[in-house]
């Protein structure tokens, strides 16, 4: 089909060449291009750019979700309040803490898993499936299951610890352990996804490189250090970037497992925005937080890009 289409296009080419000047054709192509852009552009404008623009505007207002007819312009009030709100700083800290731990741990673990399941062993496929299956399970389901695993009295994990002679741990019910418990679960859930991407990257590395290296006497670790990692560099950049973006948006786990507690140690910015906007119906204040959140994410992405580019 592709062939005939090309043939037809070529057959008609001399005719159109005669009728249209080069400039006209260029303009037509541009129109064509824009008309292809239109559907996606419309959707993006409608569901991304417009809402964000509105959030920017609403950030300067007092807007109760139940009183959309009484939106009041309040200038910088929301922003001034935000910068004195201890919960904002706490949420920001929690979000950054989660990101700072999850990104390296999850990506490192994913790389290790990928190296493991890339070997030609029996049952490799079974392991691949095992590591990947949490990814395709709904986070909500997993979060609820882990609440039971983490149960401070008779949870499975505590039963194991008890059998090993370690005292029972409160996990999600302790300000010191709650966030780390969520991190552990999140890493377990999502590492399979990054593993798959790394695995695809690994399989794209030519075997000859390894053969040459081993002939030159490089051991396994040197092969990893000087062949695998450099060859995967672009994949690593990609994985780090998407993991960071996912991490700063952390919402489902604390929403389901702890609702931000105990003592606000698992309240993230996304959860904070949700509670202000939908539970407390302060759409104006929630919009202001979203704008600040957006700026923070943009700064973070720039930082990440700069760090990874400069190498």
């Amino acid at each position, binding site marked *: 089909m592709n062939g005939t289409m090309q043939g037809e*296009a070529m057959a008609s080419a001399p005719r159109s060449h005669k009728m249209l000047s080069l400039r006209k054709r260029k303009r037509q192509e541009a129109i*064509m291009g824009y008309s292809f852009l239109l559907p996606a552009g419309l959707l993006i404008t409608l569901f991304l750019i417009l809402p964000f623009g509105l959030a920017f505007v609403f950030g300067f207002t007092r807007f109760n979700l*139940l009183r959309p007819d009484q939106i009041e312009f309040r200038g910088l009030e929301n922003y001034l309040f935000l910068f004195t709100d201890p919960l904002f700083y706490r949420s920001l800290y929690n979000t950054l803490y989660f990101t700072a731990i999850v990104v390296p741990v999850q990506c490192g673990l994913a790389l290790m898993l990928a190296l493991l399941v890339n070997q030609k062993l029996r049952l490799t496929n079974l392991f691949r499936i095992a590591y990947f299956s949490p990814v395709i399970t709904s986070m909500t389901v997993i979060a609820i299951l882990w609440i039971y695993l983490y149960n401070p009295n008779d949870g499975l994990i505590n039963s194991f610890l008890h059998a090993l002679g370690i005292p029972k741990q409160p996990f999600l*019910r302790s300000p010191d352990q709650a966030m780390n418990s969520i991190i552990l679960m999140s890493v377990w859930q999502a590492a399979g996804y990054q593993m798959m991407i790394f695995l695809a990257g690994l399989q794209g590395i030519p075997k000859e490189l390894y053969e040459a290296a081993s002939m030159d006497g490089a051991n396994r670790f040197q092969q990893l250090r000087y062949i695998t990692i450099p060859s995967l560099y672009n994949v690593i950049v990609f994985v780090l970037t998407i993991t960071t973006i996912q991490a700063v948006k952390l919402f489902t786990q604390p929403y389901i497992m702890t609702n931000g507690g*105990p*003592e606000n140690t698992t309240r993230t910015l996304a959860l904070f925005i949700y509670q202000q906007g939908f539970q407390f*119906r302060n759409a104006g204040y929630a919009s202001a937080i979203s704008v600040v959140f957006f700026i923070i994410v943009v700064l973070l992405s720039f930082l990440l890009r700069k760090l990874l580019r400069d190498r």
Partner: protein
Amino acid sequence: MNMRWMKILLAAIMAVTIIGCSSNGSGSSENQEASGGTGGSAEPVEITFWRPQADEAEDQFYQEAVKAFNEAHEGKIVLKMETVTRGNSFAYEDKINAAVASNTLPDVVALDGPNVANYAASGIIIPLDEYFTQEELDDFVPSIIQQGTYNGKFYAVGLNESSVVLFYNKKIMDEHGIVPPTEIDKAWTWDEWYDVMKRTADPDRGIFGTNMINDKGEWMTYAFEQFWISNGTDIVSEDGTKAEGYVNSEQGIEAANFLKKLADEKLFNIDPTPTEFEEGKAATKLGGTWNITGFEAYPDLEWGITYFPRSPKGQVTSPSGSWAVGISSNSKHVAEAVEVVKWLTNKENSARLAKAINVPASRKSAFESIPEYNELPMRVIKEQVTTVSHARPVTPAYPVLTQKFAEALIDIMVGADVKSSLDNVAKVYDQEYARNFAE
């Protein structure tokens, strides 16, 4: 067909798909408006009604009530009910929020008791005083009037009430020779209840002194605010403007300290399994009357009911509150919507729903048609509902209050400092009220 035409065709298809989607959407909403607007003189008036999905028995009750209503008002009013999924979260409230923004609220809307103030303050439901005589209102138990009233006006009518009692496991009580009180003036004080828990708790057999965490959301405020009330204070002032000096008052701190003591001594499970009490793993259970339905699946469980424990210095009090129905300010057929509200909340329906899902009725007259409530153990529930129950605070900033209070209680139960946790509730609530509701 050359390539250019292929491209144009493709772009056209994509564009049509999108326009098709959007015109579909707007088309259906126009239809809705048209049918809402033209329901005039000759044709029967259509009244729309939203309520959250509940369990099977409750859903069935509503379906039957709507069917009976439509048969009784044939040719005059058509009641259309839409059941909205709620899950364990705020999906129903989110839908209401969206409907407010787009002016598409139904005529009759179900709402949870503590939301009345918030909705009334926002003007999305209308006062019903002129449609009810004093005599009609007097038939409702006091807490129904209390939860439905905001700023002196009555907005929402409950079909049923609810109450929290102290269930006990008869076998465990017998083992220890404990006889729970059956008279309201002899209701256990906190200290007496504490002694009972101390004696009955048996970590080796996995038995807790009590089970009192139903969920970590609305339940916390619904059940535990009573400890504040019983101790002579509340979690906000009566007019709802201030939490400072109430939730963190001396009496309040005492109440929280009592709960903390139970938690510290592991007399209850902060993360209980849903059927802990049913399986005989808890000697008592601070639970809602709706739990009774679940007990029936455990024939080995012998249970009894006693009163909500009271402060040693204070009165017996018990939680109350229920879903209620109100009329939205979008309604163009208020008279007919009033008919619906009155029908749904009449004596027969109140009694029928009470029987269907094991909750107390909202009308005094309805209790008379349910003889079980005149004898133990159900008599305890009736006594609490008709004499000592309290509705949750009536304040437009309730969403913040309940969230922050519940968070603070859980924090306290897992070891946070009592005073600073309660001070924080007071601070955040007062800030919220001052920022958004003080006029």
